[in-house]
């Protein structure tokens, strides 16, 4: 009897506190998962396995979450162009709708970081200078002070950040793709993550103040220009002046 009452109460409580998704939402999600699964089976399963369980050549996708899917596929890193030290950024081959469907399917396999949504107010409130400080403390040692990227060991590299969208930047921080460490919400909270993304976008978009930016690497391209154009040009001038008179 007590058991019956308890069960009944649980049932009532469940209906009271159950997730408030509408039938339509659920239907849409189911539809996305189904479409995503079809895309997955066609484009991804040969490496990642029919159930997303991974294989000899590719990691398991169970629990990686929609953020990882959106990052890898929207930056064109997945599907992989060729095996190598590291997946290269290229034009995405799936549309954003298809990527969302794939993300919904992988998400349905079991949790993981969700694709971040940055609203406009949050973006506008983000502190650019603070983002810069965080960038220099956490990101510059691999991605270079101006986000130009730099090599790691054996052909791996920290990529150039100038093409990364704010969403992709935060996804990378939350999922730690390839050699990149994972920066969870405990280390970099939501507002800080947005500030870092805002700083990266700023240094990527702002025009170089002093003329041509020379790839933002500083001394190496500067030295090259000084020798090729500076010394090269002035030696040509020497020759020209030397040729103006009888040698």
């Amino acid at each position: 009897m007590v058991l019956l009452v308890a069960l009944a109460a649980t049932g009532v409580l469940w209906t009271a506190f159950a997730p408030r998704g509408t039938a339509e939402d659920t239907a849409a999600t189911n539809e996305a998962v189904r479409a995503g699964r079809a895309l997955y089976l066609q484009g991804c399963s040969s490496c990642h396995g029919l159930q997303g369980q991974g294989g000899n050549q590719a990691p398991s996708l169970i629990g990686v979450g929609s953020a990882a899917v959106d990052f890898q596929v929207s930056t064109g890193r997945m599907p992989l162009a060729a095996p190598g030290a590291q997946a290269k950024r290229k034009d995405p081959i799936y549309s954003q709708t298809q990527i969302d469907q794939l993300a919904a399917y992988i998400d349905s396999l079991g949790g993981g970081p969700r694709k971040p949504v940055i609203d406009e107010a949050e973006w506008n409130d983000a502190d650019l200078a603070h983002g810069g400080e965080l960038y220099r403390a956490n990101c510059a040692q691999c991605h270079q002070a101006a986000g130009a990227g730099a090599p790691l060991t054996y052909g791996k590299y920290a990529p150039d950040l100038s093409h990364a969208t704010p969403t992709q930047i935060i996804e990378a921080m939350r999922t730690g793709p390839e050699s990149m460490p994972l920066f969870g919400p405990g280390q970099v909270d939501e507002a800080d993550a947005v500030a870092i993304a805002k700083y990266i976008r700023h240094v990527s978009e702002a025009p170089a103040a002093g003329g041509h930016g020379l790839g933002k690497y500083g001394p190496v391209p500067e030295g090259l220009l000084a020798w090729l154009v500076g010394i090269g040009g002035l030696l040509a001038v020497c020759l020209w002046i030397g040729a103006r008179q009888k040698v």
Partner: protein
Amino acid sequence: MTTVPPPPLVKRPGPVRALNRAADERFGTQGALRRNLNKVFPDHWSFMIGEIALYSFVILVLTGIYLTLFFDPSNTEVVYDGSYVPLKGVEMSRAYASTLEISFDTRAGLVFRQIHHWAALLFVASILVHLMRVFFTGAFRKPREVNWLIGVGLFVLGILEGFAGYSLPDDLLSGTGLRIASSIAQSIPVVGTWASFLVFNGEWPGENFIPRLYVVHILLVPGILLALIGAHLGILWHQKHTDFPGPGKTEHNVVGHRVFPVFAAKSSGFFMLVFAMLALLGGLAQINPIWAFGPYDPANVSSASQPDWYIGFLDGSTRLFPPWEFRGLGHTVPAVFWPTLILPGILFTLLAVYPFIEAKVTGDKESHNLLQRPREAPTRTGLGAFAITFYLVLWISGGNDVIAKTFDISLNAMTWAGRVGAIVLPPIVFYLTRKLCIHLQERDREIAEHGIETGIIQQLPNGEFVEEHRPKLPPVPDHPRVPTDRVALPSAGDGHAKGALVRRAGRAVSGFFVEEEERQPEPTGSSSQHPEGGH
């Protein structure tokens, strides 16, 4: 009516003449002025490379003075509140904040900063090219060894001055460089820690390091540079310029143009062109964007941190050197000691004493005023090519991360290629260069002895074919023979035809690199014509 005769016409001296007369009447300057303005300088284009360094230095001083008006060499921490938004509210030193102010809030500040920095790069680069020209033509030989030593001193000081300069803004990149410099100082056995404390006034990063560096950069080193440049030019003036052998040129004369007006006009024009090049670079190409690097913070470091190009070879040697650390007798000698202190010590010492080594080995005690072409001293040219190759490998390795990233090469492969290349390539290049020089010499000799191939094929009665060789025509002197260095030459009258210009430019280059078809057979008696007597 009587006619008054008109007063006799007296030609009044012009203002220049009047000034000259006034100075002469008071200081007796006429003799010295006449002597010096009549000094003759030879015309070869490669003699103008050193001038690039001189003019860059002048521009460095001019732009540097402007920058000192706004730069605040202070370690004091401030909170930035200027117009560069991405750093607003960030804590930084006064030095960094005032450099931002120069870049964003001072009229013409950024372009002056950029011209100053480009001029620094070109200053050291032109010294190096000038040094190579002097080396490969044997211009360092007696009596010019002292000027060679002064030149090496200028080169080293130029590097130091550049390093001190780009370290002043206290940005993340230069702070990283200074941190490395302090580590290098600490790596010296026994005295390292004290050396570092002495230079940085205690533990890194110290409290008042930037003011010290500022004094070094704007007073101490430029003062010494100026004095050495004065000595360098004074000795050149006294000893007179060297020249390549040619018609009318001997060990005892100088053929060329007088200081006034031709040489002065040429040099002033060249100064303007150097200035134009620096303005072009400073106006169009960003250099050292300190705002993009951020303020220095000992906790931060950026990937792909490089020094300016002239320190690059030391960065490269450090990247290539294996991590060998020696411990013993209660001391540690870290790996960084060898590639950053011992290696440059050896390199610059060898560079400085090279003229004396060569004189010793060849037994050549003569004075030389005529230059050699690189092929005439195959071993020296080979050694120079050896040194350049070694330097280039280190230099490229200094930027190996940027190169690896740009060309998609594994960084580890770059490092190993540098390690192998630094050891294997220089001897190969030495051998090939020396061989090439000897072949070119043989070719010259063949032409001198057998004449020039005419392309006329003759068939002999027995059916054999022979090509006719003709003896070389006696060279047509471009200049009349000149007895002394006091006499200037008439300048070229036909230098305006386009074809003539291109042809003569071609000849100017070929005199250096390609065999010269109109070289005389060796005159006897002149020791300069016998290269490397004792090799």
